[in-house]
């Protein structure tokens, strides 16, 4: 009973309570957001590169961009599905949609986005590897539709924005967690997509033109800088809401979340920013920065997702 004497006389203590439900949305949802950032980020950054540079400067971009997006989106959908306690009922989102829910809107948008990315992926893949299954009727049919790629690309880019950002609205609709402010989260989601979108191309674009690599370094540097500034603002200057302050106390007071958060900031933001601004002509260092961006973003997302869930609600 010693510790009771350390409680201030005016402070009330809950003496009987139910178990706290703990982390409801955990690592699977972190992975979901992380993979979605890659899936949409490569499309957004890819579109920027295609607008600014000639195709010849980035020879593999046309088929690698939808391929990476396709893989990442499937990882995202996989973790979305297995996080459901009744995964087979996922179909209810399509048969009984409730349109006020950003989960519903997001699921529909992400599904349409995946269809468009799949069209781009299959047409560009079979066109690029023209000898692969040369006589197969399906492959031939897909190759003959190569023109679809350019037709669906603008819609895919357009859809990449809401698909990237809708999770911020889910977080906003999670009315119990005040840390997640829609304005900030919308921009954080977008910046996360640009971070890992550019990091993906830095990893695979070793032979691309120098001007393209400079652009990728610039996108990485700007996106990590802006995102870092937003995190710092929220971390140090959230004086306005008692609940947000109480949530951030879980990081401020040290412990595992403190370590996770600052690991994320160091790997995902500080290191990539320094490398992208000072050593962007060093291929090895840029690849290192890309890898730390992926790891750091996971830590940052995971901390930000979990800390509000530690707060007792009643």
């Amino acid at each position, binding site marked *: 009973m010693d510790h009771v004497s350390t409680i201030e006389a005016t402070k009330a203590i809950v003496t*009987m309570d139910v178990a706290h439900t703990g982390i409801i*949305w*955990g690592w699977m949802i972190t992975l979901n957001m992380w993979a979605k950032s890659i899936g949409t980020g490569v499309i957004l950054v890819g579109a920027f590169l295609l607008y600014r540079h000639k195709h010849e400067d980035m020879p593999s971009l046309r088929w690698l961009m939808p391929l990476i997006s396709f893989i990442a989106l499937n990882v995202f959908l996989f973790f979305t599905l297995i996080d459901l306690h*009744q995964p087979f*009922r*996922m179909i*209810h989102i399509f048969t009984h949609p409730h349109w006020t*829910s950003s989960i519903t809107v997001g699921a529909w948008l992400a599904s349409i986005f995946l269809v468009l990315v799949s069209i781009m992926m299959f047409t560009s893949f079979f066109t690029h590897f023209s000898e692969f299954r040369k006589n197969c009727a399906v492959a031939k049919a897909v190759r003959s539709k190569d023109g679809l790629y350019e037709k669906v690309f603008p819609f895919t880019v357009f859809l990449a924005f809401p698909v990237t950002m809708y999770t911020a609205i889910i977080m906003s609709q999670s*009315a*119990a967690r005040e840390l997640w402010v829609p304005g900030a989260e919308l921009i954080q989601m977008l910046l996360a997509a640009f971070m890992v979108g550019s990091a993906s191309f830095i990893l695979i674009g070793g032979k691309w033109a120098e001007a393209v690599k400079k652009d990728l370094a610039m996108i990485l540097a700007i996106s990590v800088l802006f995102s870092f500034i937003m995190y710092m603002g929220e971390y140090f200057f959230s004086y306005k809401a008692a609940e947000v302050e109480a949530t951030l106390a879980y990081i401020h007071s040290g412990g595992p979340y403190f370590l996770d958060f600052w690991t994320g900031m160091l790997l995902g933001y500080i290191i990539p920013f320094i490398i992208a601004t000072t050593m962007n002509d060093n291929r090895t260092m840029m690849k290192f920065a890309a890898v730390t961006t992926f790891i750091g973003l996971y830590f940052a997302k995971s901390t930000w997702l979990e800390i509000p869930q530690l707060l007792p609600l009643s």
Partner: protein
Amino acid sequence: MKLGFLVDLNLCMGCKGCEIACKVENEVPLSSWRLRVKYIDIGSFPDTSRSFTPLRCNHCENAPCERICPVSALHYLDNGIVNIDSERCIGCAGCMMACPYGAIYMDPESNTADKCTYCAHRIEGGLMPSCVVACPTEANIFGDVEDETSQISRYIMEHQGNVQVRKPEKHTNPLHYYVGGGNNTLNPLAHERIEGYGLFNNITTLDHPGNPNRSILDRFLEPIFGHPNDNLDNKSLLDMNSKGDK
């Protein structure tokens, strides 16, 4: 018609009769609660007091849980009750993230979200919610808040100035009121919870909502092949526990 609840905290003596009545009526599984009575110690010896606060779903008029539910498993009834259809629920836990009052749990038997429904099934049959019937001090008052002559409406009017709701700043418009509540009883941030210490029980953190013995693979296999724990209910769990004690 808008059905609402009012708890007069001056009358509540913390007997937990309502909590037990709710568990029995709705067969709420072990380690889950639809209604619970929070105990709070205030002050330091010898100047101490203990207060009790029954907490349940507030059946908000502007319910964040209903808004976020992707499949309308959570829905409003005409009488204002926020009801849940567990056959429709996909178990996304969005509602658990949205409810500012922590009123929703993932049922470890059905693996779907569940919560207080103001005993909608009893009301349909003309009965009062079971917690109301069980309360020995009549601290729980239930009725139509739109009917000026109902007991709850009169109680609210008689106690003007001393009627509170939880977290009014969330704009959820709860249809659940308290008389005699204060910061300590209604604000979860006003007091400390000491991990691992409690008067009657340990305060613990559940590993994950839902059934902790059900793996991710079970989520896919169970609807097809069933689960070895399919027949587990409160009674068999109790039997298992008591066997383990021997």
